């Protein structure tokens, strides 16, 4: 029911918006995909990662490099997802040894490393000049050049990613991820191969970061390294936590707060960021389970639906 209302609203929304509004909504869809990935790794499996922006970057550069050289975007989706999955899997290995803030630092360093590669390896990434003229795809003869058309394309990818994530969370894997988060020692004693699930949580979450990046490149049509620096990783982390970590709709809500709210509050100019900072502090102090957790506190009957 909730999903249906949300879908109808999202399909109807662009008809009432100007191109910039549609752009923001597209950005929301892209960031939601990256946040869904991080929610798998962090929210469900409990493995902190401050490197999600790196995977968005890997996806975006894969798409930019391939499509500006005449390859179809579909190739970029496959390659970026596989590449992010493999790198995410490798990034999971430190998580087998360290946890919490130590793991945060490991992933933080990885994020810096990726940023440096994007900036310094000019032969591949064109460094600080970035890559421009990234084309939007034509799908079976249907051009997504217009903002609204590209938005629907983003929405379709978001729908597929959401379904896949929902499927996974409902499956025994989702239970194993939760067990990994809540009590890895006990999980191990019940036959849960915590090593494999930890790596899988990193790999799948990272792969979704890559998928988001593949959409991000043709959305903005110009990419450069700073877009994928630590700031975005923190922002994605905030989306997951503000929305409600470990809750299916958390990333949708968190990304909306992070992408759309700043625009709506523009009239307040400089005050906005302060208001936003205070809002986040209060939310996390009084309701660490995020906006959805707050909703459950206020309306207990909504609990089962999230």
């Amino acid at each position, binding site marked *: 029911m909730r999903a249906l209302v949300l879908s109808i609203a999202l399909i109807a929304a662009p008809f009432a918006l100007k191109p910039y509004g549609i752009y923001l909504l597209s950005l929301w869809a892209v960031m939601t995909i990256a946040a869904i990935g991080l929610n798998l790794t962090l929210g469900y499996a409990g493995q902190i990662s401050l490197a999600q922006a790196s995977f968005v970057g890997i996806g975006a550069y894969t798409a930019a490099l391939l499509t500006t050289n005449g390859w179809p975007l579909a190739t970029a989706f496959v390659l970026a997802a596989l590449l992010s999955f493999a790198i995410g899997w490798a990034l999971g290995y430190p998580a087998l040894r360290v946890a919490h803030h130590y793991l945060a630092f490991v992933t933080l360093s990885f994020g810096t490393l990726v940023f440096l590669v994007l900036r310094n390896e000019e032969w591949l990434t064109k460094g600080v000049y970035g890559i421009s003229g990234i084309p939007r795809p034509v799908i079976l003869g249907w051009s997504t050049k217009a903002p609204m058309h590209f938005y629907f394309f983003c929405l379709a990818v978001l729908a597929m990613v959401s379904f896949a994530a929902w499927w996974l969370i409902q*499956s*025994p894997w989702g*239970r*194993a991820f*939760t067990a990994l988060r*809540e*009590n890895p020692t006990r999980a191990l*004693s*019940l036959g*849960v191969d915590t090593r494999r699930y930890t790596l899988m949580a990193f790999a799948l979450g990272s792969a979704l970061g890559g998928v988001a990046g593949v959409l991000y490149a043709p959305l903005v049509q110009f990419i450069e390294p700073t877009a994928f620096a630590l700031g975005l990783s923190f922002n994605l982390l905030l989306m997951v936590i503000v929305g409600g970590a470990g809750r299916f709709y958390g990333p949708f809500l968190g990304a909306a707060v992070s992408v759309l709210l700043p625009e709506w509050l523009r009239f307040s100019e400089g005050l906005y960021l302060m208001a936003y900072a205070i809002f986040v502090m209060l939310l996390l102090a009084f309701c660490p389970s995020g906006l959805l957790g707050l909703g459950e506190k206020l309306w207990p009957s909504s609990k089962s639906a999230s």
Partner: protein
Amino acid sequence: MAVLEVRELTKSFGGIRAVDGVSFDVQEGEILGLIGPNGSGKSTLFNCILGQLPPSTGEVRLDGRAITGKRACDLNKLGVGRTFQLLQVFPQLTVRENLVLAGQEHAGGMWSRLFGPRDAGLGAAAERMIDFFRLRKLAEERAGALSYGQQKLLDVAMAFMAGPRLVLLDEPAGGVNLTMLGDLRERLRAINAESRATFVVIEHNMEFVMSLCTRILVLAEGRIIAEGTPEAIRNDPAVIDAYLGH
């Protein structure tokens, strides 16, 4: 036939020998009690047998095959279950989900767990376990919302979800009230009679351990100081001196 054989097992932490050259066998279908003062090495011994701590020296065999150093999750798949001294349920999952989780890794591979049935085909088994441990009214509750005693029952139920042949129970009666204690003992006896599952039980509640176990080992300072029937242990001067008191 011995299901579990422990040979000269030693575990040192720095200069302290928490377990010091312990050897014993557990026969199939037996309920073996393991008692001793706090700090005598009982839980460390469990952790070494179950792959949660690597033993310093010694060997552990399951059905005659060496299992020393195997990971806990692999041992569990070989039919070895356990409960922990402190509560170990998953508070955010419901009682039913806790039970399904406890069995789901035993059948099929990773892919069948992703694309197969949501309950991993364990729905009926979980229902039976819920009835068997009288958790029916709580089946849909999050485990974190249960009382301590109820969580303890769930904890024990989870250890049996995968139909293990050998279960190591670390203080199953700790903090459980008298009524529930009788219940727990009765459930454990029923499982033992029905499936011929073998138990090793660490327990401080003497009444519980004496009435449940067929044989008892007494551990003190990392060594076995006595072994025998509950009756013999109760009257053993060394045990009275080290643990039971006069």
